[in-house]
C-alpha cells in the first residue's frame, strides 16, 4: 500500500531564521481512499545528530486525534505558526550537529506511521576556522 504524501512549505520558502523570528507555514496531507488516519501531529523541533545519542527538543507541538479530524479537513492546507526561541542555534560541529525542522507525523490504522521533516536553520553556527594556537609565543598581552 502506498504511503500518504505529506508536503510542508515554509512561508516565503525561507531556509534561514533568526532567534525570535516568526515561523509560519502550511502542510498538506494527500490521502488515498484506503488510508484510515488515526491521529496527526505536527511540531517544530530541534534534533541532535552525530556520534552521541539523539536528543530532541520540542518547541511547538500540536496533535489532532481522529475525532478532531473532521471529514475533508486534510484536503485543505493546515497552517502552523510559532515564534522561534533564542536557542539552540543550528550547529555543524565535529561529532555533534543540531538541526531544526518542522515535523509532521501521521498515525494510520494498523500502527503504521508516516513522517515528513522540513528542515530550516535557526541562526547558523559552525566550528570557528581561526586557531591562533600556532602563535603560542606571541601572546596578545596588554599587561
Amino acid at each position: 500500500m502506498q504511503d500518504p504524501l505529506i508536503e510542508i512549505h515554509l512561508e516565503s520558502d525561507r531556509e534561514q531564521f533568526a532567534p525570535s523570528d516568526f515561523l509560519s507555514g502550511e502542510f498538506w496531507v494527500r490521502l488515498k481512499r484506503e488510508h484510515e488516519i488515526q491521529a496527526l501531529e505536527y511540531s517544530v523541533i530541534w534534533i541532535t545528530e552525530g556520534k552521541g545519542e539523539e536528543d530532541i527538543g520540542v518547541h511547538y507541538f500540536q496533535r489532532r486525534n481522529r475525532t478532531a479530524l473532521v471529514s475533508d479537513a486534510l484536503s485543505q492546507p493546515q497552517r502552523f505558526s510559532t515564534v522561534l526561541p533564542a536557542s539552540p542555534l543550528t550547529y555543524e560541529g565535529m561529532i555533534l550537529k543540531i538541526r531544526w525542522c518542522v515535523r509532521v507525523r501521521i498515525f494510520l490504522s494498523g500502527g503504521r506511521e508516516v513522517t515528513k521533516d522540513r528542515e530550516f536553520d535557526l541562526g547558523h553556527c559552525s566550528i570557528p576556522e581561526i586557531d591562533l594556537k600556532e602563535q603560542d609565543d606571541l601572546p596578545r598581552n596588554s599587561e
Partner: protein
Amino acid sequence: MLSVVGHCFDCDPTLTFDVEIVQRRQTLQRWFQAFLQGRWFRGSNRRWWAGIIEAGFAAALFLAGVTLLVVNLTLSIIDRSPNDSTLYFVIYVLISITLISVGLAWIARLLWHVGVSAERRGAIAAQANELEILNELRQARDDLPTVPRDRRLPVAGQVFPFRMSPSPRNLWGLISSVLFSIIALCLCTILVLICAKSFGFGGTWVNQLEQLSERISPRKLPIPSRPWPAVALLAALIPATGWSIYHFFRQLIKLAGIGPTSIELSNYPLLPGQTYQMFISQTGRVRLQVLDVDLICQEEVTYNQGTDIRTEKAIVFEQRLLRRRGVSLESGKPFETQIELQIPQAAMHSFSSTNNRVQWKIVITAKAKNWPRLRRTFTITVHPGADPAVGKHEVAAAVS
C-alpha cells in the same frame, strides 16, 4: 657572649644572665620569623625546597601522629596494670593528638597562606553585588533553553566585575588521598604489630598484644604462630601505603606551592564575536617555567555501546591567549596580567542536552621544575549571538 652586653651590667651577674636570656629569645624569634617568612628560601630553587620541606614536615607530623595513636590505642586495650601504664597511655595519646593537630594546622596554614591574596579581598565586594548579578543571570537563562546554567555563579571581582569560579577538584584530591593514606597506614600498622608478635619481635608490647588476643577472644590466640597470610597482606600493603603517602605528599606540595588561580572578566555571559578583557591572577611560591592560557571549545557526547555508556570529547576550537615563560611566584606577590579574550564570530554557544554538550573553557596550564603539572579549568558560558548574521541577512533578502 656575655661580655658584649655592656659595661652597665658587668657589675651585676643577674642582670647579665637576664640579658643573655633576652638575647637568646630574640635570636630564636628572628630565626623563627625568618623561617616563617621564608627568608632562607629566597630564589627559585630555595623556594621549591621551602615548599617541599614545609609541606613534607607538616604531612610527616600528621602521619606520625596517626601512627602513634593507632599503636597506642591497640596496645592500651590489653594493659592490665593501670598503675603505671595509664599515665603513659594518656601521655602518648596527648602526644599523638598534638602531632595530628600541629600537622593539620600546618597544612591548613600552608593552604591558607598561598591562597589568601585576591580571594579574600574580592569576597567582601562579592557579597554586596552578588544578588544583582544573580538576578540578571537568572533572567537571561530563563530565555535561553539548552544553554547550561553555571554550577557556581561568578562573583564580583576586583579588577573586572565578574570573577569566575574554578573547578574545586584539587581539594577533593587532597582529602581523598589523606583518607586513603590514613586507612592504609592504620592497616599497615596493625599488621606490623601482629606479624612482629608472631615472629617474636617487639619485646614487651608484643607480649601485651598476646594478652590482647586473649581478651578479645576467650579461646587461645586467634593469631597463629606464623601468620603467613598476614605477612603476605602486609607485603602487599606496604607498597600501597608508601604510594598513598607519596601521593598525599605530592598533592599537598602541589597545593602548597602553586596557589589558587583566579580570572575576572569585563562582562559575562560571553557572546560570539565580542571581545572582552580578562584579568588573570596566579598565586604560589614557585618559579613557573611556562604559563599558558587557552580558550577551548569542546563537544562532548555520550552513547551506548553494548551495555556500556561511553563519553567522547572533541576539542573543536583551541586558541592560545597567553604564553609566558619564567613566571616567578612569590608569597604575597601573585602573577597578574590582563589579556584580551575574543569569542569567534559564528561560534556555537554553550549547549547542554541529555546526551550532548558544547562547553567553552578557559584552561590555565603551568609547568614548574620538579612540580606536578598545574591545570586549572574555568567553564564559561557563551550565549547565542544577539545578531546572528546569517539569519538576519536571509530575512532582509526575503523581505526585499
